[in-house]
């Protein structure tokens, strides 16, 4: 069924169609409508789930962890300071191997107090052991929530489905909502091998000596390494049923491009439009939108940048004292390989400043004009 919905409601519909059983959340702009609609669905019986109101995001994730350990399909959503407050509990979910799925609306971190978009909130959680999907359309949001549950529950690793504040969260688009029976066929009920139950008492997350801890981490990494192939496989399966492919990356005209732009989130869609305009003007550019950031899609990134002479990464985030984070990660994927090429690192759009087709034109012009980047970071649109 086609419906015009906002990005936040795309998360709600995804969680509803996945038949989430427990939702625990605390409201925060720009995430509020996600859980507002879910609470209405729980109240009017559209969704048969327990909606737990909590006093903080730390408690929201703690409640999700308890519910997931008890064997319930569990969903929450947050943003920025709320995600930061969850930080400790994020480790408990991933280390506990609990497949919670969470929506995160990318909002810049305060201070200065802000509600507008950038990726520093979710990228600050890079090393917590959660999978991260950066979405670029409301359709992709609904579809990815379903895929994220499937991948998470197969590997026992939690997932974040991430969308930009306002440019996606509050933007209305036509979304083809998957039919419930087809979703049920794609995503069977969550049946973990072990769960908290009085009939089979076990201790979860207890004191773990140096004798066992390292093996637990090794197992988490090994399962994370299985995720890229599983995301591709479940993406193809999704395409067979619903006609839309869900991949690790979204390449556009990369095969013959001399410069490949590397982007994420809604800026990745803007880049797509910018590439069309630049192609018409004779520039040989392509766009590689990275959708899945954890696990990092090493193979796909190398494949789609193989033909390029230069790579221009546009980051809506920063690791202070280093680079934009996607730019660091790009280098870690391509450097040390035979066909290694210069990576230019641009930073744009922090705190919700617009990233426009003109921003990408500026990025491409700089990249053409220089053999290699003359600065560690090339700033786009900053009033120096």
């Amino acid at each position, binding site marked *: 069924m086609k419906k015009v919905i906002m990005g936040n409601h795309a998360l709600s519909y995804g969680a509803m169609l996945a038949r989430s059983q427990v939702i625990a959340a605390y409201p925060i702009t720009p995430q509020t409508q996600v859980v507002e609609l879910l609470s209405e669905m729980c109240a009017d019986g559209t969704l048969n789930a327990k909606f737990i109101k909590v006093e903080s995001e730390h408690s929201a994730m703690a409640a999700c962890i308890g519910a997931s350990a008890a064997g319930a399909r569990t969903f929450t959503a947050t943003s920025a300071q709320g995600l930061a407050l969850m930080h400790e509990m994020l480790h408990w979910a991933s280390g506990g191997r609990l497949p919670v799925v969470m929506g995160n609306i990318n909002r810049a971190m305060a201070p200065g107090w802000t509600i507008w978009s950038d990726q520093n909130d979710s990228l600050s959680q890079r090393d917590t052991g959660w999978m991260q999907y950066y979405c670029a359309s409301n359709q992709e949001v609904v579809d990815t929530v379903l895929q994220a549950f499937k991948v998470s529950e197969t590997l026992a690793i939690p997932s974040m489905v991430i969308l930009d504040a306002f440019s996606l969260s509050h933007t209305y688009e036509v979304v083809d909502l998957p039919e419930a029976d087809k979703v049920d066929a794609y995503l069977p009920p969550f049946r973990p091998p072990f769960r908290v139950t009085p009939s089979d008492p076990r201790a979860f997350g*207890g004191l773990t*000596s140096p004798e066992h801890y390292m093996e637990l981490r090794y197992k988490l990494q090994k399962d994370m390494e299985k995720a890229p192939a599983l995301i591709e496989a479940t993406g193809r399966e999704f395409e067979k049923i619903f006609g839309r492919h869900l991949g690790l990356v979204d390449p556009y005209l990369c095969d013959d491009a001399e410069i490949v732009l590397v982007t994420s989130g809604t800026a990745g869609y803007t880049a797509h439009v910018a590439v069309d305009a630049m192609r018409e003007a004779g520039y040989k550019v392509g766009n590689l939108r990275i959708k899945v950031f954890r696990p990092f899609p090493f193979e796909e990134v190398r494949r789609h940048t193989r033909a390029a002479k230069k790579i221009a990464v546009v980051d809506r985030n920063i690791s202070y004292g280093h680079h934009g984070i996607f730019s660091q990660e790009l280098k870690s994927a391509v450097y040390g390989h035979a066909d290694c090429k210069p990576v230019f690192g641009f930073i744009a759009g922090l705190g919700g400043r617009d990233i426009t087709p003109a921003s990408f034109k500026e990025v491409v012009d700089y990249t053409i004009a220089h053999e290699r980047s003359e600065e560690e970071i090339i700033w786009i649109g900053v009033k120096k």
Partner: protein
Amino acid sequence: MPKKRDTQKITFASAEDMPTMPMSLGSMLWNKTGSWRNIRPEIKLEDCIQCGICWKFCPDMSILIENEWPVVDYDFCKGCGICAEECPTKCIVMVEERK
């Protein structure tokens, strides 16, 4: 005295043999955190009024009630001193651990 516990250590030969979740690794049965203790509670039972406050307040469940009297489980007591602080008759005293 505390009941005898099964202190058999559970070990896994390889990561493959372990559960995916950090679950039931059996560690608390043999990992006697009492060895972390620097001071130990000693109960003078002649002043004890059997109120159960020490049992209720112990964060490590290391005060056991046996035949209606409190007994310290030194295998797991870390020596935090909360029982001594809370005891209304001050019949629990913390003494230097002799190692």
